[in-house]
């Protein structure tokens, strides 16, 4: 009784409703696209951090990452490490090193800010104080240069 009149009413208003539903659906899809674009851009930057900065992120950056992003970073790190271990023979190959083609084993660096003590392979420690200059093995300094602690000086 009541249901048949409801059905015919619903049918007559149908064309209006379809427009509104489509309209709203468009907005929802667009919002979804915007959010996904934003989140994806963040993910690309987080991934770049592993290559440009290192495997340990500074607190200032982690503070601004969501739990899921931190988790993603850790999983990516692990994936990369597994892959690097599987190439290049027994010891694996650190692909994040020597991003720029190396010209020499040792390089001249200047300290950009107070960092503290730094141990090199033969056991000796060096004090990295702001503006001090050192002649150090390239593979030891690379990460610190990328992190902005040291500056690579070309002779």
């Amino acid at each position, binding site marked *: 009784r009541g249901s048949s009149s409801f059905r015919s009413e619903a049918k007559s208003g149908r064309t*209006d409703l*379809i*427009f509104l539903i*489509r*309209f709203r*659906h*468009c*907005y929802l*899809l*667009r919002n979804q696209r915007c959010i996904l674009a934003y989140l994806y851009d963040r993910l690309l*930057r987080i991934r*770049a*951090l592993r290559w*440009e*900065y290192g495997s340990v992120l*500074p*607190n*200032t*950056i982690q*503070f601004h990452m969501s739990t899921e992003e931190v988790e993603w970073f850790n999983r990516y790190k692990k994936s990369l490490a597994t892959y690097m271990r599987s190439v290049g023979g027994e010891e694996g190959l650190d692909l994040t090193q020597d*991003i*720029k*083609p*190396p*010209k020499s084993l040792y*390089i001249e660096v200047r300290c950009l800010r107070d960092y503290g003590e730094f141990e090199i392979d033969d056991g000796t420690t060096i004090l990295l104080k702001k503006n001090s200059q050192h002649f150090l093995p*390239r593979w030891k*300094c*690379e990460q610190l*240069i*990328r*992190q*902005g602690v040291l*500056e*690579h000086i*070309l002779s």
Partner: protein
Amino acid sequence: SFLQGSKLEIPLWLAKGLRDSKRRIISVELPKIYKEAWRTVFTADATVVDLHKMGPYYYGFGSQLLNFDNPENPEIAQTILQTFISRFRRIMDDSQNAYNEDTSVLVARLDELERTLFQAGQKGLNDFHCWEKGQASQITASSLVQNYGKRKFPDVDG
């Protein structure tokens, strides 16, 4: 609620979403630069047009416009393509020859796609000069971190 026959300005993505060949909900009117009058200007000499003012997404937006059933679509597509072809050579030349210069005049009348191309050319040029100077092997600080260093963050215990 909208009256049938009313004219509105809506964003492209909305127009795309509402388009339906079965139920004619909306019909799209072409923006003037894709219409015949402007198309003849483009075919005459595309290199003088200020695409930044006209666009700034002349190519991207134009390509999206082709989604709507418009009888002029083949002409529109052809104009967009020919415009790109005629302008490309100069963009490439400019981007490869402007080293360490103020390029604002060169990019002023380019649309966004062309500006991206120009920047790609500049990057290639700069990388080449860097290599020539022997700086290609210099390790540099991560640009992501340099920016973070300049901003102030609230104190977090680590």
